[in-house]
């Protein structure tokens, strides 16, 4: 197991390195992305631009610039071009909102995704299955920005049931924290509820045809136990993979939802930096996001070994 984890960690580092190089290169080939010019402002004298170029090292060879930037990212000294503020502070500020949004939504979508998928599969072809199929497909198809707008309009602006904007720290006001996050959670979760329930439904229907399910019935187990202990347990394996990847990606920032509900999370900072072609925060956020994706990928592999004993053989010395 130790070697397996070590190998995964090494793989993570390689992937993150590749991502950082790519991001850096892409930024440097974008036309009109000369940061010195945009930092100097409109109508700046060539001298000013030259000074800024000199001061920030924009004339150095790209590998050197890359190394400098990576060094600053890891020492926490990274300063944004736009506004010249410390990047790490902004990211750290945004993390609680992003994590709260992501974890809360994940709990909701796992609960309802598994519930709906399970009921659909158990009642395959029945009325409940058809109703849940419609619900799921609707959930998948509804555009997030539209759903957010509708929820905001009816549940925030018109009726005032929920707040429309902002994030409250959990440590300050736990109830207010949840109250402010309910609409964003629902908005973010709905697509995933639809998606997960469909995946679980088909995965369960596949598993129901397995010989071991017939064996379970032949043992005299109740139908419910056959469905939960034998069918659901095995059908959850692909769901865990999806979950790891989705949570990993969302921890990097849920761009649309954060922006619409003004949560000031990492995703919102990403949008802001992208609009300004502000490389330092872009680099930092991309690496931060990629870190979670890669980390959760590794966690999925480890969870896999736990969920599926057949995987363990190759990776751990028995």
């Amino acid at each position, binding site marked *: 197991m130790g070697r397996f984890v070590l190998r995964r960690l090494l793989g993570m580092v390689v992937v993150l390195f590749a991502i950082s190089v790519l991001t850096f290169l892409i930024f440097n080939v974008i036309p009109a992305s000369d940061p010195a010019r945009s930092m100097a402002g409109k109508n700046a004298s060539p001298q000013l631009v030259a000074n800024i170029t000199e001061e920030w090292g924009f004339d150095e060879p790209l590998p050197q610039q890359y190394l400098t930037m990576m060094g600053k990212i890891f020492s926490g000294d990274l300063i944004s071009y736009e506004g010249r503020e410390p990047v790490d502070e902004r990211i750290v500020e945004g993390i609680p909102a992003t994590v709260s949004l992501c974890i809360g939504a994940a709990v909701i979508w796992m609960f309802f995704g598994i519930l709906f998928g399970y009921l659909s599969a158990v009642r395959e*072809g029945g009325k409940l299955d058809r109703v849940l199929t419609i619900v799921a497909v609707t959930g998948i198809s509804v555009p997030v920005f539209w759903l957010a707008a509708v929820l905001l309009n009816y549940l925030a602006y018109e009726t005032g049931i929920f707040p429309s904007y902002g994030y409250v720290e959990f440590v300050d006001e736990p109830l207010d924290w949840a109250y402010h996050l309910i609409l964003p959670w629902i908005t973010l979760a709905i697509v995933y509820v639809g998606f997960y329930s469909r995946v679980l439904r088909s995965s369960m229907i596949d598993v129901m045809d*397995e*010989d*071991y399910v*017939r*064996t*379970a*019935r*032949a*043992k*005299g*187990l*109740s*139908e419910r*136990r056959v469905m939960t*202990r*034998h069918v659901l*347990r*095995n059908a959850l394996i692909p769901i865990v993979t999806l979950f790891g990847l989705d949570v990993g990606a969302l921890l990097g920032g849920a761009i649309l939802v954060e922006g619409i509900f003004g949560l000031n999370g990492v995703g919102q900072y990403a949008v802001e930096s992208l609009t300004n072609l502000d490389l330092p925060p872009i680099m930092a956020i991309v690496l931060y996001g990629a870190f979670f994706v890669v980390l959760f990928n590794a966690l999925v592999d480890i969870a896999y070994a736990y*969920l*599926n*004993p*057949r995987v363990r*053989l190759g990776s751990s010395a028995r």
Partner: protein
Amino acid sequence: MSTEPLLSMRDLRVGFVSEAGLVQAVDGVSFDLAAGEVLAIVGESGAGKSVTAQTIVGLTRSANTRIEGSVRLRGAELVGASDDELGKVRGAEVGMVFQDPMTSFNPVYRLGAQIVEAIRAHRDDVSKREGHERAIELLDSVGIPNASRRVDDYPHEFSGGMRQRAMIAMALALDPDVLIADEPTTALDVTVQAQILALLERLNQERGLATILITHDLGVVAEVADRVLVMYAGRVVEQGTLEEIFYDPQHPYTWGLLGSLTRIDRPRPERLPQIGGAPPSLLNLPQGCSFRPRCPHEFDRCAELPGLDQRLADAPGHCDRCWLDPERKRALRVVDDQIGLESPA
């Protein structure tokens, strides 16, 4: 057997609704099984053997299945029984062993845990630890070495033969009266097959376990069966004792099965004999005898379905579905000095 048989099936019909129509997989099968008896059901794939056996405990039940007829276990009707009632019979009174031991255990649970689950499904007074002890005893009794250690292994850590032994152990966990073994040796190596058959025979003798053995392999039947049902296209075409079926077979299909058996005590044939043609589609059965299109001895009367009747005065219980005169059959079935089916010209 003084009074009623342990298990009694009467005119069982199982049909599956499909888009193309009703597939009548089992069409009027009847038999009695006495305590301690081994009944073999033989036939090709699709003959309805497994469906017949699985329907005994309702494993074929679904929205698209039509089940008619009667299956009585010690007099209690199972065909119309509720799922709860059937659940009490499954595992506890009727144990089942399936064809492929590789896929018949849930891969994510330890083998012992799956046996404990079978026990505790019926006996909630048995603690997990007692169940675990019982699982070890069971694995030991079916000849798994180091049972106390192996009980906590996962199914994929067992070989095919060991897994089938474990499957049998699980089927016996609650001391059922009836064991249904659905092609228990088909997926195994020949040497392992013999071990599993020996095990089944031993259990049958030691425990007086009534066994329904489903197979397409007459070699397996010869080893262990007391009585034989030969099925073809959903119907029983011949039934009788092991001796009757092997030494005085009455139905041409049975001749074909016997003729295609390879035997070590006879010269090796140039080509393995086979029954020409393929089994009919269950959606579109020939009129009359289902075997007619493949039978070299077909004549006018075969357009009428023969009943499963006793046709030999001195052999009660030996029944078949063939219109041919028994004396003629005895001449027709001899091919190259052995029982067999002529290849259609």
